[in-house]
C-alpha cells in the first residue's frame, strides 16, 4: 500500500469498518491516500487525524447522532483534505461501472441536486439525455480503486470469506471494483467450514488477495451479531477532540500507542470475550 494509493474501506457508518487495518495504516505513517468510503465515520477520522489522507471520496462521513467526525470536518474546512462528495448511490454506480468494465452506469440519483455539478469539471459524473425518451440521467464513470479492505466474520486461508448472517451492506461493491482486496476476519476457519454451507459464503477466494486475522477488528464500530458499536468510545473521542492536548493523549493511549490490536482493545476495556461490547470506555 504505497503512499498516494486509492484505498476503499468497507463498513457502513458505525458498522463493520476494518478498524484494526486502519490502525496499521496509521502506524505505518502513510501519506497522501485517497480514501473511498460510501458511508463512513471513525475510519476516515483516524486516517485524517494521522495526516494520511489527501482526499476523501464519500457519500457521508459522520458519527450519526453522536456528532460530526471532527478531524474530517476540520481538515476539509481548512482545505487540508479534499472531500470529493457523491451520494451513496452515485458512488455505488461509479464502483459498479468499474467492476463491470462499463464506460458508465446510468442512474436518476442526483438529478436536480447540486451534486453532479461538483463533478462536471472532472467528468466523473455527467448529466446526459436518453436519446429515445428524452429522459435525463446521470452517467457515473468508473472509479478505479487500488485496494479494498473489508472486515468479515470468517475467512479461510485461501481467501474464501463470509459475513454473518449475510452480507448486507455495500462492501461487495468495493471488493468488486478494486484491483486487489484485503479481508480482515474475526476468525480464520478451515475451508471445510465453507464447503459445509457454501450458500452462506460472501466472497470467493479469487476475489480476495490477502486475509488477516483480526479478532474484534471492527472495534469501535460494530460487527454484529458478535458485538455492537461502542457508544462510549465515540463519546470519549468526540470529547477529546475539544483540545489538541486532550486528543493527543487520547490518541496515544487508546488508538495509536498500544503495541498490538489486543492492546488497543484492552486500553478501551473491550478485550475479546464471548459477549457483545457494551460501553467499554476506560
Amino acid at each position, binding site marked *: 500500500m504505497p503512499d498516494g494509493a486509492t484505498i476503499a474501506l468497507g463498513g457502513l457508518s458505525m458498522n463493520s469498518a476494518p478498524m484494526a487495518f486502519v490502525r496499521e495504516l496509521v502506524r505505518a505513517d502513510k501519506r497522501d491516500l485517497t480514501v473511498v468510503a460510501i458511508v463512513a465515520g471513525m475510519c476516515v477520522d483516524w486516517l485524517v487525524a494521522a495526516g494520511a489522507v489527501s482526499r476523501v471520496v464519500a457519500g457521508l462521513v459522520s458519527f450519526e447522532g453522536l456528532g460530526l467526525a471532527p478531524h474530517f470536518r476540520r481538515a476539509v474546512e481548512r482545505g487540508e483534505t479534499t472531500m470529493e462528495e457523491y451520494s451513496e448511490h452515485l458512488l*455505488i454506480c461509479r464502483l459498479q461501472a468499474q467492476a463491470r468494465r462499463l464506460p458508465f452506469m446510468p442512474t436518476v440519483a442526483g438529478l436536480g*441536486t447540486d451534486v453532479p455539478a461538483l463533478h462536471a469539471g472532472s467528468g466523473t459524473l455527467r448529466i446526459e439525455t436518453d436519446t429515445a425518451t428524452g429522459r435525463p440521467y446521470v452517467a457515473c464513470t468508473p472509479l478505479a480503486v487500488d485496494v479494498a479492505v473489508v472486515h468479515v466474520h470468517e475467512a479461510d486461508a485461501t481467501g474464501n470469506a463470509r459475513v454473518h448472517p449475510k452480507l448486507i451492506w455495500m462492501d461487495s461493491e468495493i471488493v468488486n471494483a478494486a484491483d486487489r482486496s484485503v479481508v480482515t476476519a474475526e476468525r480464520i476457519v478451515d475451508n471445510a467450514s465453507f464447503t459445509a454451507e457454501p450458500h452462506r459464503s460472501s466472497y470467493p477466494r479469487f476475489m480476495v488477495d490477502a486475509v488477516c486475522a483480526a479478532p474484534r477488528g471492527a472495534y469501535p464500530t460494530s460487527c454484529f451479531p458478535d458485538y455492537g458499536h461502542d457508544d462510549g468510545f465515540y463519546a470519549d473521542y468526540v470529547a477529546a477532540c475539544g483540545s489538541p492536548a486532550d486528543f493527543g493523549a487520547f490518541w496515544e493511549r487508546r488508538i495509536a500507542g498500544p503495541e498490538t490490536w489486543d492492546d488497543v482493545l484492552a486500553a478501551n476495556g473491550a478485550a475479546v470475550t464471548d459477549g457483545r461490547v457494551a460501553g467499554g470506555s476506560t
Partner: protein
Amino acid sequence: MTGAPAVVPSYSCTIDELMVVAFSRALANDTRAFNGAASFVPVCAYRLARRTHAPELVWAASSIAVDADPAVVGSSTLSDELWGGASMLANSPADFWTYAQGARYNTFAFRGAQMDAYGNVNNSVIGPYHSPKVRLPGGGGMADLGCMIPRIYLWSTTHGPRTFVERLDFRSGLGWGDGGDHRASLGLPGGPRLCVTSLCVFDFEPETKRMRLASLHPGVSVEDVQSATGFEVLLPAGEVPITAQPSAEELHILRTEVDPSGARRREF
C-alpha cells in the same frame, strides 16, 4: 444550530410524541418505508402506524430488516438492535437499491441541516462549498432517495431560521426541486408530502410546491412559525388548524410498545 423558540405544548404529551403521532397519522396502509441513520422520529412513526391504523405498512429497519419489530429502539437506527422480528434481511446492493429505484419502497423521510421552501435539503456544507464554514457529513443517500422515492417526508426537531432557509448553501437532497413541475420534468416520481417540525406541520401547495402551514402545534402562532422560518410561509385558506392531539391509545402504544426506552427523545 437552531434559533427555535421554546414550545411547551399544553397537552399531556411531549413534543416528540406530538411529532411522532402527527407523522404516523399521515402514513397510509400501503406505506413501504425504510430508514437511515439517526431517524428516531420516523422509525417511531412507522412502528406506531403499523400498530394503529396501517397494519400492512412495511418498514425495513436500516433499509435492511423487512418487517422488523424490535422490543426497543436502541441508540442507532442503523444497528442490528433494531432488526428483531424481521422476515427478511435484504442485501443492500442487490435488493435495497433495486426496490428503492423501482419505488417498491415508496416512502422515505429525511432532514437536513438546512431545508428550503420546496423541501430540498442541505447536509453538506454551511457557507461556500469549497471553503465551508462548517463541513457537514454529506448528503448520504438523500440525493438518491429524494429522486427515487415517491412519498417523501421531512421532519425537523429544530425549527428555526437557520434550518428553514430561503436558499440552501448546497442542495444535497431533492424535494420538489425548483417547484412547480420541476421534479416531474426530470422524470422523477412523487415528491415531498409533509414536513413535521417542532412548531407545526407543513404540507406543500399543489401548484408551486412550496411549504404551506397545515397545522400549528398547540400554543404556536402563525407568527411564531414565520419568525422561525427563513422563507415566506404559505397559509391555507381559512383558519390554520391545531395539530390533532394524540389519542390515549396512540400515546400508550408509543410509550409502552413502540419506544419504551424513549429513543425518540435523542433527537431533541
